[in-house]
């Protein structure tokens, strides 16, 4: 699918440690290939159709392609902005002028060019057991990404805006993005990530990011995924929480043909806290796969996740939520709740929450349901004069709104609510 010649043109090539790591990853990819459904983590997501598509290794014109200015705006998000077009950082579309002191941000490509040494520890590592075909490709081929560091004690007020745009290129394009984010001790930052694109770009975007949230630091991460309907998105987000760190994640999955997001949370720090909310609403032949793997290692760690799924048409929604409590993680309190609505006879939902508990001073709960709207509630709305279709939409919307609990600022929340409303199953207005 990719060739070594492409690797030669990657930023940072020539650095011995990076070349070695990339070549090791490429070899490992050649050996492991893409994950198949015998891999438990890929049980419900088939890559057969994906594997048959061809992708260009890059979009040569990515640095100059025009982008609808409206795409770069998000209500309530007026802080610094980083824009990637077809996987390439675009300084011309970004606005980094208003950075607060203590915020260091730039593209991976320029960091590799100008000051690669600090990245050596993160990018020079060996292939790991939990690397799959996608993360290996990313290791081998990542050409750009975000390098963000929030200095200790820095409280960033305005949310940082991260935009991934896919626009029509000469051929369907693959891009591999690797981002590295560190929120320093006692620092606090909110990041709003927005994926969007032209209706017809069948790109393949493969994003891996490593996020470290240091002691007493806070990260708010809101991800709004509206990629084009023919796009394939593979994302893996590693989040490590140190002592007393908190992370608040919101994810709205609306676009893409095949969209998978692996959120792997390592709660190594004592008293760290991870909260996630997410929802997908799927139509047509969309396939979404949300995998939330939370590992409690430190003492008195708390994780809580609430995910909602709606599948209509011939769509398929997959949810895997695992809470793993390691020995010694006493006082861990983990919960994962997932509810799904199946709206069409041709849609499918596969959900599997999992608890793996190796410590006894713990509370761990999970729950999952698949079903339809409650008949009694529907009748209640109708008895008040609300027509059936409208009543259904009201309830589906309310069902998904839980995923937006806590989204800030208010203007962004309202925007997300409106997006949800648009995405609801076709019905008379």
């Amino acid at each position, binding site marked *: 699918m990719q060739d070594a010649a492409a690797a030669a043109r990657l930023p940072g090539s020539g650095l011995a440690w990076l070349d070695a790591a990339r070549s090791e990853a490429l070899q490992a990819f050649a050996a492991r290939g893409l994950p198949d459904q015998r891999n*438990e983590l890929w049980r*419900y997501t088939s890559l057969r159709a994906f594997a048959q598509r061809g992708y260009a290794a890059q979009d040569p014109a990515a640095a100059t392609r025009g982008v609808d200015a409206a795409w770069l705006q998000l209500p309530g998000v007026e802080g610094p902005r980083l824009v990637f077009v077809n996987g390439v950082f675009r300084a011309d579309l970004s606005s980094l002028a208003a950075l607060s002191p203590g915020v260091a941000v730039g593209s991976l490509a320029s960091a590799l060019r100008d000051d690669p040494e600090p990245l050596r520890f993160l990018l020079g590592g060996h292939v790991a057991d939990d690397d799959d075909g996608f993360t290996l490709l990313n290791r081998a081929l990542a050409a750009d990404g975000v390098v963000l560091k929030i200095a200790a004690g820095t409280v960033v007020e305005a949310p940082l805006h991260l935009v991934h745009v896919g626009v029509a290129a000469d051929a369907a394009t693959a891009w591999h993005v690797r981002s590295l984010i560190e929120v320093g001790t006692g620092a606090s930052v909110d990041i709003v990530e927005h994926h969007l694109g032209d209706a017809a770009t069948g790109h393949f975007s493969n994003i891996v990011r490593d996020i470290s949230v240091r002691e007493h630091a806070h990260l708010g991460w809101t991800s709004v995924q509206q990629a084009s309907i023919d796009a394939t998105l593979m994302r893996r987000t590693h989040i490590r929480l140190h002592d007393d760190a908190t992370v608040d994640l919101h994810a709205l999955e609306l676009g893409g043909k095949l969209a998978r997001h692996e959120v792997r949370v390592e709660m190594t720090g004592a008293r760290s806290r991870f909260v996630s909310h997410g929802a997908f609403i799927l139509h047509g032949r969309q396939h979404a796969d949300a995998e939330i793997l939370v590992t409690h290692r430190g003492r008195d760690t708390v994780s809580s996740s609430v995910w909602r799924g709606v599948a209509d048409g011939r769509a398929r929604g997959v949810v895997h939520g695992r809470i793993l409590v390691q*020995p010694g993680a006493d006082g861990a309190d983990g919960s994962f709740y997932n509810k*799904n609505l*199946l*709206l*069409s*006879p041709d*849609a*499918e*939902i*596969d*959900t*599997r*929450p*999992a*608890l*793996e*508990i*190796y*410590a*006894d*001073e*713990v*509370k*761990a*709960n*999970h*729950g*999952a*349901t*698949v*079903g*339809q709207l409650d008949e009694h509630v529907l009748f209640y709305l109708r008895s008040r004069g609300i027509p059936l279709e409208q009543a259904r939409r009201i309830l589906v919307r309310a069902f998904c709104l839980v995923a937006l609990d806590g989204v800030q600022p208010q203007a962004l929340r309202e925007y997300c609510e409106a997006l949800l409303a648009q995405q609801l199953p076709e019905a008379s207005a």
Partner: protein
Amino acid sequence: MATQPEEVQAALSGSYKAGFVTNVETDTLPPGLNEDIVRAISARKHEPEWMTEWRLQAYRHWLTMKQPHWAHVNLPEIDLQAISYYSAPKKKPKSLAEVDPEILAAYDKLGVPLHERNKLAGVAVDAVFDSVSVATTAQEQLAKVGVIFCSMSHAIVHHPELVRKYIGSVVPQGDNYFAALNSAVFSDGSFVFIPKGLRCPMELSTYFRINAGHTGQFERTLIIAEEDSVVSYLEGCTAPMRDDNQLHAAVVELVALDRASIKYSTVQNWYPGDENGKGGVYNLVTKRGECRGPDSRITWTQVETGSAVTWKYPSVILRGDRSSGEFYSVAVTKHYQQADTGTKMTHIGRDTRSKIVSKGISAGNSQASYRGLVKVEKNAINARNHTRCDSILIGKKCGSHTFPYMEIKNPTAIVEHEATTSKIADDQLFYCRSRGISEEDAVSLIVNGFCKEVFGELPMEFAVEARKLLEVSLEGAIG
């Protein structure tokens, strides 16, 4: 409240009460497995040609398979050539009166006095000693009403048409590695046939005992409930304490025709190995029932306290419209036991229902997993499932895991799963102790309450037994 590890360890080194060995002269095939062994087993049992062929077919299929490796189960590669596939007491009894007194004594020690039970109204017992059924009580009484309750070997010879029709129809020969092995070499087991419209007048039960060393036990049980019939069946299992591991790879098939109801209960107390994880039975069992007819019902209830490794998922295929499947389970693990158990409910017919209640208690260095699949097929309109899994951890070195899978292809389904894992609530323990109950009794009390819903599903006389077994298993589980 602090647990005291040394005392816990001391107490947990507890007592396996069924660990004696019985000295009985046996006819044992040499260890190893090949087509000749399969033929020899079949010949020793005077089986018809088709049965031998069926076994060989399974054997050849098995040769193409590999021993599976399961996540979360640490099972060493089993040397299947080191096992003897047939061991039977030499003195073949013709009637209960002729059963070797040593064997009767063995069952007495287990609390299954075959003579006395025979006289008890309401229970018929089939006793399987190593590979062979040694005694079946109450047969005549049952035969009068048309119930066939006998050993599988007997059924193959005397009711070939029934066996041939149903064997492998729920668990095909090549279903999985151990089921294929069982199909090739199964030694004995129970056969039950309940004719149309009959409510079986007594509880049927089988006691399985592995005695001989270096043998595997591969029994095969087949229960057929014809239209409008009702049957309740219970199996109990024990084995002596031996340092090497014994393999138990059984297959159980249940067929419920229109409006029939089968209740299958298991109290499994195979030797779990010692406190260092030495010895113990590998209990790798395929149990599956099919609600073949409309309005039929299958209930699995299990109390699993024994075995070094347990791997079993009593399942129900809900093919008939309005059929229902239930699974109630208590699994207790301690020492180095590993239990990976759960169920599969496959909804195919309309208006099918399933219910799953699983209670896990892990102590010592053990690992217990619930693994379940609820599958709603595309045409299974109005399927309903409710699953509840709760686990209790006792001690810091054990693990408890819950892996439910839900695959839903019909929008009229309502499928719900909930699970919790925690240790025994300190406030409950304290409450009991403040009322003067010892900590150990309090644990037993609380765990008993925790398991109540499952025990409630057992036939009355066995619920008492299960409760006792639980107490023994938990002895000193907390310091």
